[in-house]
């Protein structure tokens, strides 16, 4: 078939499809409700068929380029991402995220060791040799911490600010740290290792120093509430970073490229989950941990409950039930 005849036969079809695609990119909701939307997948395949024919028959660029552009536009509309649904978000938080954490437990356990071992080490060391606190922090910083957790201080745990002010502060600081921890894992894991150990040293030293000088009670009272979400989220984002770095070093039985894409896919989801956890932690830290009037029992009890909740969620969330009967 000669080119002119081919164009004459199909021009109308292409024109109407082009008009609909144009409206689908501008006002997608309206276009998707029109009756043409139902016919679109079939029309798109026909269009692809026409392009393949045009190329095989060596038609000129006037035809092939036009069809090529139309096909690319159609491809974008046909394979557009599904509309976001809250149900998906809930499913991710309840089931997919804990599953992914369990699947990646090796890296996350490694990150936990990198955080908790220096932390406990410093905590114990501060009890034995309290003067070493001065080799980690300057005197001004130590004085600041001491002022924050002074039992005589009205608002324990913060230097200044209202609840909402501190919420913004915690979100900005903590979540940025978690995201950077994940991303810096790409530097062969060095970044993640560095962030985890330095955080372990800092937290352990502060906790040990304050406990040693007798401010332990207000300090532990303050941190017990949000520590579960905050520390676990930091460990998870560190694990995601380590996964990136370790995959770069040792991709296993895959080529490095696809292995890295996979690690990025997993890591981004872990970072998203850590983001949700840190949002929760910031909320607790700003609006619950700061309440000074509650009795110890409520504070430590709720803290323990939250630790159980977080660990239980990560351990059992989205787990498949043991099947009693096969079939169906």
């Amino acid at each position, binding site marked *: *078939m*000669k*080119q*002119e*005849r081919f164009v004459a036969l199909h021009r109308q079809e292409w024109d109407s499809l082009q008009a609909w695609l144009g409206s689908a990119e501008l006002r997608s909701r309206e276009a998707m409700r029109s009756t043409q939307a139902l016919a679109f997948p079939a029309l798109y*395949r026909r269009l*692809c*068929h026409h392009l*393949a024919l045009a190329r095989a028959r*060596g*038609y*000129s*660029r*006037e*035809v*092939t*380029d*036009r069809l*090529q*552009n139309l*096909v*690319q536009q159609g*491809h*974008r509309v046909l*394979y*557009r*991402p599904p509309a*976001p649904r809250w149900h998906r978000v809930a499913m991710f938080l309840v089931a997919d995220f804990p599953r992914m954490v369990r699947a990646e437990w090796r890296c996350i356990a490694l990150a936990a060791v990198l955080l908790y071992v220096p932390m406990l080490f410093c905590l114990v060391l501060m009890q034995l040799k309290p003067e070493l606190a001065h080799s980690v922090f300057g005197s001004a910083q130590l004085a600041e911490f001491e002022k924050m957790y002074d039992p005589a201080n009205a608002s324990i745990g913060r230097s*200044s*600010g*209202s609840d*909402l*002010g*501190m*919420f*913004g*502060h915690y*979100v*900005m600081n903590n*979540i*940025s740290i978690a*995201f*950077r921890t*994940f*991303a*810096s894992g*790409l*530097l062969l894991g060095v970044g993640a290792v560095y962030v985890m150990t330095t955080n372990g040293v800092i937290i352990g030293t502060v906790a040990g120093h304050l406990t040693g000088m007798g401010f332990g009670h207000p300090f532990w009272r303050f941190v017990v509430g949000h520590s579960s979400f905050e520390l676990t989220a930091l460990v998870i984002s560190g694990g995601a970073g380590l996964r*990136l770095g370790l995959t770069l070093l040792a991709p296993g039985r895959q080529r490095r*490229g696809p292995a*890295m*894409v996979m*690690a*990025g*896919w997993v*890591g*981004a*989801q872990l*970072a*998203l989950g850590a983001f949700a956890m840190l949002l929760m932690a910031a909320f607790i830290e700003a609006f619950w941990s700061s309440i000074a009037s509650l009795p110890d029992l409520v504070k430590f009890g709720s803290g323990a409950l939250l630790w159980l909740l977080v660990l239980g969620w990560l351990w059992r969330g989205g787990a498949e039930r043991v099947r009693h009967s096969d079939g169906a």
Partner: protein
Amino acid sequence: MLDTVRQFETPEGIFLRLRSAGALPRAQAWSIDFVIRVLVCWMGMIPLAFLGQAGVGIGMLVMFVLMWFYPVVCEVFFHGQTLGKRAIGLRVVNADGTPVTWVPSMARNLLRVVDMLPGVYGVGLVSTLIDPYGRRLGDIIAGTMVIHTSELPSGNHVPVLAAERPPLDLAADEQAVIVDFAERCAQLTPQRQQELANLLDPLTGQTGEAGARQLVAYANWLIGRP
């Protein structure tokens, strides 16, 4: 090969042509986004300044969202385009040409931290220069790429002349060359047209303007005009 067009075969068995964008347009788009973000942040601070400590908190939240989630939300909801990318005519797509979704967009934007590293996008610049499709590290790991939105102009209409059959049976690629010449006539000066047509003197038997017209007449016959 010195070609930044990435071909991708779709499930329908045809090839998509993704024209990858280099470092310069992407830097321009990023700069526009940066200015927009700074302006929004700055304008937001003015009313928030009256709210005292709570205002500082809300300001921090605004900064946080602008810093980490502005590109992700824009890319997912506005066809892979932040405002800067839209202004320059760029778009983020998955490696298979489909619109970018949440997880890849999140991955590529979080990994900016590494691409930005020494100074302003040092690692990213080196990566875009090395990668054949101009991807920075974040793009490579997220499996995405940044492409130009504008399509290449398609071929022009062949000028209408009385069709004439070529004296020889031409092979398919030879036919394509003659039709291509006819389609491009409008973009060429008459001198250049004649210069090109003179090369086919053995076929047309004519030179100069008559030769060029003869080729267009052949092209008319080849695409099936009467």
